[in-house]
């Protein structure tokens, strides 16, 4: 069994009379890429702020590398790095200077290490440019560079692909996988995109309204969640007529395509049924959105 390097026990934060996070018990194992999933406002950033000692928990505690994070702040944070919400830098300084300053707060960093981190995120050619000239995507990449600069054992990334274009999102995902596979870094990654977590994480937890809904291996949690499908078929009317004749198919919506809900094991059967009835099927894809997933697990299909 893997060693748990991040644990929260009964973690909670109350702002005024409202609990932003309540009784949260997380467990992240060494080597995990841990997806922390939840819609905007679910309490993901509040949790990350408590983990990184920016917020004082109202209840519970955080243990990192087996130590209480607040009581052993210095030793714990020397092995952790991350991005909280968005990456903000000293705009009047160059990318190099920013990394030099932020890195030196953990340990002495060499010039080669700074350029190495910048090279990984593709910003080495802009090292001497002031950050105020950077686009959002470049700042996001610089955020990742500062997070990996001191080669931490645990990297915490709060919505790292937020505001990035598809290419930028892909690059960050590849970087996360590279950190995990090549450097053995444990990555704790928050997102409101199920597809993003699914693409990179091996374990995940789902948070909604500040409470933990589900936690476990991604394959276990998402394995049975292929009941929503999006079908691009022609003619649409003909396809709808055929679908309606089959009571095991629930038509969710009809637009340019048809969204249906079926048992996963019958997906191939449905595809075949449409084709044999003369319907041209241009695409037949599992549709898995966070909303669908929440719908499923709040119906009691998943164990918390």
């Amino acid at each position: 069994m893997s060693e748990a390097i991040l644990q929260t026990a009964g973690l909670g934060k109350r702002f005024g009379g409202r609990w932003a996070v309540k009784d949260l018990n997380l467990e992240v194992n060494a080597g995990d890429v841990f997806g922390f999933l939840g819609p905007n406002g679910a309490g993901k950033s509040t949790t990350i702020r408590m983990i990184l000692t920016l917020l004082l928990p109202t209840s519970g505690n955080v243990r990192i590398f087996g130590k209480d994070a607040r009581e052993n702040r210095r030793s714990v944070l020397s092995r952790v790095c991350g991005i909280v919400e968005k990456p903000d830098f000293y705009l009047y300084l160059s990318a190099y200077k920013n990394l030099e300053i932020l890195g030196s707060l953990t340990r002495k960093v060499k010039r080669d290490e700074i350029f190495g981190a910048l090279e990984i995120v593709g910003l080495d050619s802009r090292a001497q440019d002031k950050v105020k000239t950077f686009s959002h995507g470049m700042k996001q990449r610089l955020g990742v560079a500062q997070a990996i600069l001191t080669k931490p054992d645990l990297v915490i990334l709060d919505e790292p692909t937020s505001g990035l274009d598809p290419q930028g999102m892909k690059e960050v995902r590849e970087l996360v996988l590279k950190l995990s596979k090549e450097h053995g870094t444990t990555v704790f990654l928050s997102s409101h995109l199920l597809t993003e977590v699914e693409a990179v994480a091996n374990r995940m937890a789902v948070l909604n309204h500040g409470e933990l809904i589900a936690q476990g291996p991604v394959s276990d949690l998402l394995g049975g969640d292929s009941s929503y499908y999006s079908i691009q078929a022609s003619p649409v009317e003909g396809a709808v007529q055929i679908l309606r004749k089959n009571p095991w198919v629930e038509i969710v919506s009809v637009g340019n395509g048809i969204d249906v809900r079926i048992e996963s094991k019958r997906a191939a059967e449905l595809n075949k049924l449409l084709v044999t009835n003369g319907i041209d099927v241009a695409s037949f894809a599992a549709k898995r959105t966070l909303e669908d997933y929440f719908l499923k697990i709040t119906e009691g299909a998943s164990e918390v």
Partner: protein
Amino acid sequence: MSLLSIEIRKTFRRWRTYIGFIVVAGAVILLEVIIKLNETRMAQNFSHGLSGDFLISGSVLNAWVITAFIMNSLYIHVPFLIALVAGDMVSSEATSGTLRFILIRPPSRSNIITAKFFAMLFYTALLILFLGALCVGIGLAFFGGGDLISFQTGMPHIVILPAHVAAASTVMAFLAAILSMSVVGSLAFLFSTLVDNSIGPIIGSIAVVILSFIIGNLPFEFLESLRPYLFTTYMGIWQLLLNSPVDWGEVGKYALALLGYDAAFFAIAYFVFVRKDIKS
């Protein structure tokens, strides 16, 4: 890099930091040029009140006299330049989001706030020393040296410091001015830890300074009891050092009061900062 050197580097990489130096340089150069252009008339005006009691030969205007005059003129305005940077030390990092980045690193909040405080003191000292060096430097170039003749505020006498004493007294006066201005810096610094925007601490601290000056100077008896508690009461410490003889007891009392305010403002800032939830 030590935390202090990081904070000093950050402070002096910002354009805003140099506003104080530019304003001070502009004001001092302007004042000294104007005085130089009107030297004869100004010297006559200055010595007019003295001619009945003193036999004056040569010009009474010299580097030390001009420096004391400029210090008198600017010590109401310099606090604004101090607050401009001190009020921004913590709040600007909260606004820009960089506070999150530095507080998730190993150094403790206590060390970070202390480093920021000393960086603020360093800026304050440098600005006052710059003001002093410029006043004296240009003064010596334009007017040369001589005896320092000054009218002590609230005292019924004129002080004449011989040339060899004037230089040392002026240096001491500027060192005391650093202590005096550090209290304004500490107050702005405290305000900077309370809010997440830069304007509030700057305006807030200046408002407190102005209000304290007003209360301290209004000729109402019922305000007398308040004056010992106003830090502005002690900000004129540097003037005591241009007196003859210097009342060292009074200087010590003023210095202790100013150090007390510095310590109190820093202590509050410290306790606020180390317990603060970082939501920005």
